[in-house]
């Protein structure tokens, strides 16, 4: 009988889902998160209504947190990290920074991502002009109930520009991935702005629109057909200010004309970088990273949430940009893999 717990690192949507699945199977889990609260990005950053459920993050993900917190099979340790990790599948020993030792059957990395820091694209004005904000800040404006206001003077903006792909799809800054969810999140935010403040016009500057699958009708079309959000095909050159309002400059590629348009607020749709801790996690857990810096995952056809180290599994945005729904599904898959030590025999046979 396997009675040692499964160690789960990271208590965002992926880790919460893995912990729930392990506990629901009657097994024990130890959930470690370096933050002082569970919930991951949606809770720690204060997201508003989620895609695609339209539920408030504090209700939806908050519900997942409560479910795990209340489950006696899960031991939660927040505000700490794993300092060392040794042993073999079925018999690992992890030492936490707070000194606790955890004997574990297997481990699941659900350590998520880091938000792109817009200061790395100085031409788009973040850090220079207070009214240039990120999607995370707009989520917070909405979820806090404060509404859409220009940080500089608290006025309701007449016109908001959302710039897509900030920190994604850009060789200049070594980020050759699409962050997958920001098109849909931006369409969602645009609709929320229009709802909260119908006199505010919202423009989305895009290169491609990637509201994949069912998000097409629900977000891309709806934002145009019902909320009257405008989409302009242009990658912005720079955001400056005329002293009163922000000025967005670029080329409207469809009419082949330069644009210089005044805005009250500019929103960066920031991407999902690899977790800044990944180098450390890679060293502590002995798992490989892929060429972008996310935790490397074996082929989905053959493996189940497997990393390069037998007995250590991975799920969610730790593996690359992922949505909440997919992170949750992957968390469940990783739980199954960890409880059955899936792939361990395979990996040993391959050695």
């Amino acid at each position, binding site marked *: 009988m396997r009675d040692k717990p499964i160690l789960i690192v990271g208590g965002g949507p992926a880790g919460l889902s893995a912990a729930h699945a392990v506990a629901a199977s009657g097994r024990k889990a130890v959930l470690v998160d370096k933050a002082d609260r569970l919930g991951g990005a949606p809770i720690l950053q204060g997201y508003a209504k989620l895609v695609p459920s339209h539920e408030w993050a504090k209700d939806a993900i908050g519900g997942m947190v409560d479910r795990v917190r209340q489950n006696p099979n899960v031991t939660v340790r927040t505000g700490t990290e794993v300092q060392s990790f040794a042993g073999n599948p079925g018999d690992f020993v992890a030492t936490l920074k707070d000194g606790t030792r955890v004997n574990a059957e297997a481990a699941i990395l659900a350590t998520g991502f880091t938000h792109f820091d817009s200061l790395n694209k100085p031409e788009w004005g973040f850090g220079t002009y207070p009214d240039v904000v990120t999607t995370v800040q707009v989520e917070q404006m909405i979820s806090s109930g404060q509404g859409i206001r220009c940080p500089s003077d608290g006025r309701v903006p007449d016109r908001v520009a959302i710039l897509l792909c900030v920190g994604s799809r850009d060789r200049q800054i070594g980020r050759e991935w699409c962050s997958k969810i920001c098109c849909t999140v931006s369409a969602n935010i645009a609709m929320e702005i229009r709802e909260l403040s119908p006199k505010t016009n919202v423009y989305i500057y895009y*290169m*491609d629109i990637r509201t994949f699958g069912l998000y097409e009708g629900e977000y891309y079309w709806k934002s145009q057909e019902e909320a009257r959000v405008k989409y302009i*095909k242009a990658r*912005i050159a720079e955001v400056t200010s005329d002293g009163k309002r922000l000025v967005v400059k670029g080329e409207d*590629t469809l009419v*082949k004309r*330069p644009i210089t348009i005044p805005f009250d607020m500019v929103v960066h749709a920031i991407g999902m970088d690899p977790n800044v801790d990944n180098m450390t996690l890679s060293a502590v857990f002995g798992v490989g990273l892929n060429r972008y810096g996310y935790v490397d995952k074996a082929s989905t056809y053959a493996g189940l949430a497997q990393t390069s180290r037998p007995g250590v599994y991975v799920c969610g945005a730790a593996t690359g940009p992922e949505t909440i729904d997919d992170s949750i599904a992957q968390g469940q898959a990783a739980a199954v893999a960890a409880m059955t030590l899936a792939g361990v025999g395979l990996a040993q046979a391959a050695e």
Partner: protein
Amino acid sequence: MPIHEKSLIRPENLITNDSLVIDGVDVSGHWSTFIKSRTITDYNEAMEDEIAALPGGENIHRCWQCGSCTNACTVNAVNPDFNPRYWIYLIRQGLEEELLRDKDIIWQCVSCNKCTYACPRDVLPEGVMKATAHWLELKGHTPKSPSTHFDEGFTESILATGKIEEGRVLRTFFQRTGQPLNQPWLVALVGGLVKRFPLGYLIRMGWSTVFRPRTSNWRRTGRAIEEYVSERRAEQAKALGLDTKGGH
């Protein structure tokens, strides 16, 4: 949706009927102005590969039409018709006829490389502009530009002697670009030199104009370089489907 952007309508595509009645309504003259549709009837499928085969054009296939190069561009700020993003689109789709409409401004790129640092895909648009201007010349769509003439004179001087003979390069350049040698600034420059330089120096200068000094042992090096250059040119001519003997 019809495009009502005036600058996109070409005068030759405007048709007006002096007398026309449609369904009993007289729409003669100004009332019957039609815009002929600009249907694209074919793609030149070789064009992108040809430009990619010239130095600088290698990454053209990466472009996703974001417009960052154009909105960063020094020349575009002065002349909105100078639009690297648009030209790259035309080349990639093989819309040769459209590209040729702008053939007389493409060479104006000043190689400031602002586009290079703006492009999220590392297309190197500056290189593409160079390759495109080069392509236009090789295909005979534009005459050799002054800078091509300069480069050629410069290269010939080096290949011949292993030295850059400034006087000769300058003379060749003026001659080939059809400019007179007695330019006031040049006359003043030479006059000043003659006045101020020591006699011995002037004699040496005159001597070396007649008996061109060479870098020692230049013959072998020069030949190797020449061979390399002509190989590259032959490769490019082949990629462009040109007669190898004719090209420059």
